[in-house]
């Protein structure tokens, strides 16, 4: 995955900064609350939502369970339709393939459709290192690129920016990359969109190489699908002579008909629309229409490792809609950057530690970046039980055990930093397996209750920094029960 995120602090530290940033809190609150209500309405229009969700889940599960067969089928179908298929085991290999393909065209710039896969592998940086400039053309990606920023949301990577900040970035940075922002640019969204249109238009019209991802690849037909809103996708997919699509191997659906499910669930879950403005579908190349050369790069980069985990593999069902981010109370307050990955929010908290492993501080902390409230699971259009996978990954962090990394079995040691917790959990487990021990502890707490401080030192400060402790009662319930025989004695 992109080197940009190496050395990120653990989630709690990164989130602490975000929580105290009033502008960021306001931006995120406004945006997520806007989309939550809209999504609920868009979903309520479809009476068979539960059936669509179940169908999406089953299609994806079936595909994943037979992924080897469907990958080969994709390769055959795309090749038969005039495309060229490449296989990339990891980010470096994918970057090498794409760089080589661009160089073979003789071009030194490319236009890009918003793509999570190319963000994940750090393609822009890899191209830059080889003297190839990649222009992001999605409005939010453009804002991030111009602002030398990092994406903080799957669907709207610049969600952390408000209109005023976007205007300032356009005014100061557009001229560095091409056509400057119009004079007197205000912060109305329509004017900002117009500025982006003017800025990018010359790039679209002269582009010779386009780079995209895909939302879906249909194995039966070899068809790729890109779902978008602005038309930048259509520009990149149809005007250049060469199109290179980098697609995670989990994006496959078996049959053409399967699109009927996802074309109903994805737009409603992501932008809360009945249908997004533009969806492009292409199968190989078409004489006289669109790119003459089409390359499909199938990307693993940790996906097969994820597939090997019987609990965690459900994360590969994800269709990148962002509904879980928009509904997540933790995301709303911590912001996307705290997740240290191009995949933020609840889905990021289960994807990143699987795609990258739990070795780094940030990845080991992500499974804990949730109160397990379940709102993510409730809105997920492919029914990924995110809380289940979070708890599963917590186990991996604290208990270690066998996992697959880069296709090989390794045995993880329990993560450092959890030793005290582990000891406490084991002690508690012992005490709680012995009712007498529990009772002794309860009585000790009750007897000393007048001595308990209102604020705690050390790790306890994490509680008492913002909350009072509950008062310990004069006697635990079990003592009252025994003393009064369940209140039958009439004693208080």
């Amino acid at each position, binding site marked *: 995955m992109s080197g940009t995120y190496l050395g990120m602090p653990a989630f709690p530290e990164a989130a602490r900064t975000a929580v105290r940033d009033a502008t960021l809190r306001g931006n995120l609150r406004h945006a997520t609350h806007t989309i939550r209500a809209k999504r609920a309405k868009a979903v309520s229009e479809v009476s068979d939502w539960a059936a669509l969700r179940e169908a999406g889940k089953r299609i994806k599960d079936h595909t994943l369970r037979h992924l080897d067969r469907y990958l080969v089928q994709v390769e055959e179908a795309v090749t038969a339709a005039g495309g060229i298929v490449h296989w990339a085991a990891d980010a470096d290999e994918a970057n090498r393939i794409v760089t080589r393909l661009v160089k073979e065209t003789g071009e030194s710039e490319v236009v890009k459709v918003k793509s999570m896969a190319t963000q994940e592998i750090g393609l822009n940086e890899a191209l830059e290192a080889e003297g190839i400039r990649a222009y992001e053309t999605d409005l939010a990606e453009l804002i991030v690129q111009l602002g030398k920023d990092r994406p903080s949301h799957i669907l709207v990577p610049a969600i952390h920016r408000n209109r005023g900040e976007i205007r300032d970035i356009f005014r100061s940075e557009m001229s560095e990359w091409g056509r400057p922002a119009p004079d007197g640019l205000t912060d109305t969204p329509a004017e900002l969109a117009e500025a982006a249109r003017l800025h990018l238009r010359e790039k679209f019209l002269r582009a010779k190489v386009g780079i995209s991802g895909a939302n879906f690849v249909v194995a039966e037909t070899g068809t790729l699908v890109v779902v978008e809103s602005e038309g930048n996708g259509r520009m990149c997919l149809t005007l250049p002579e060469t199109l290179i699509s980098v697609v995670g191997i989990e994006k496959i659906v078996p049959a053409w008909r399967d699109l009927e499910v996802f074309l109903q669930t994805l737009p409603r879950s992501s932008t809360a629309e009945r249908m997004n403005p533009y969806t492009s579908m292409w199968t190989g190349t078409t004489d006289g229409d669109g790119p003459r050369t089409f390359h499909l790069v199938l990307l693993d980069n940790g996906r097969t490792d994820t597939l090997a985990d019987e609990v965690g593999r459900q994360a590969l069902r994800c269709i990148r809609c962002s509904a879980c981010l928009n509904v997540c109370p933790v995301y709303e307050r911590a912001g996307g950057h705290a997740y240290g990955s191009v995949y933020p929010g609840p889905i990021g908290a289960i994807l990143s530690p699987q795609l990258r492993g739990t070795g780094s501080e940030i990845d080991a902390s992500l*499974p804990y970046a949730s109160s397990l409230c379940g709102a993510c699971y409730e809105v997920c259009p492919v029914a990924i039980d995110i809380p289940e996978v979070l*708890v599963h990954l917590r186990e991996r962090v604290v208990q270690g055990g066998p996992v697959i990394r880069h296709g090989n079995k390794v045995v993880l040691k329990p993560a450092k930093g959890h030793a005290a*917790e582990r000891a406490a959990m084991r002690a508690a487990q012992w005490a709680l397996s012995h009712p007498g021990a*529990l009772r002794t502890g309860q009585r000790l707490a009750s007897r000393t209750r007048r001595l308990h401080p209102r604020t705690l030192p050390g790790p306890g400060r994490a509680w008492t920094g913002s*909350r009072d402790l509950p008062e310990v009662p004069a006697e635990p319930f079990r003592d009252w029960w025994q003393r009064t025989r369940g209140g039958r004695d009439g004693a208080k």
Partner: protein
Amino acid sequence: MRVALFLTCVNDTLYPDTGRAVVKLLTRLGVEVDFPMAQTCCGQAHYNTGYRYEAEPLARHFSDVFKEYEAIVTPSGSCGAMVRELYPRMGERARAEGRGGTLAATLAPVVPKTYELTEFLVDVLGVTDVGAYYPHTVTYHPTCHGLRGLGLGDRPRRLLEAVKGLELVELPGAEECCGFGGTFAVKNSDVSAAMGADKVRNAESTGARVLCAADNSCLMHIGGTMARLRSGMRPVHIAQILASTEGAAA
């Protein structure tokens, strides 16, 4: 009917009043309640923090203590969800790990007969008016595991609406998590505190003096936040409201 009160370790230790309220309420409704003294903890904190193997003996112990009863009632949505949702999953995982079906078989008997209190009242006893009197303005926070885990739906609301003297007011953003989340509250204390403060602000905006929920873990967090923010509101467990009668507050 032999009904066992599974009070939960948190309530037993810190909130005995809730336990007494449940006993009073169920007794008033003609239910004979037992409190098996050997009960301890369902293992939820262990399980959700990643200590599934440590949670297993606690789950076995739970089953040993409660399996002979006809119904197991708990005034906690999250502990109820632990038994109902996660015990079966623990059994499945043990099987998937090649440890056979004994854990699943041990836990199976308690799963279908464990009820959260409001579920037990509405679904098993078939009552919504429990004869309570509580002359206060109350706002209700549906806790996550009750709402999304157990699917309690409008049961708590129906019970509260039937309480004499009680005025129930709508909590804005009611379905959003309060930020407790077990060890989340300390592992991610900044985000947890921000969520708690927002919950308290929303509660205060209702004008109610009492915030009611069906889970004391969440109320410990919300109440602790209220106290720290010097809010005039107080947290009250739904059992204590339902147990209150004219002239005798629980």
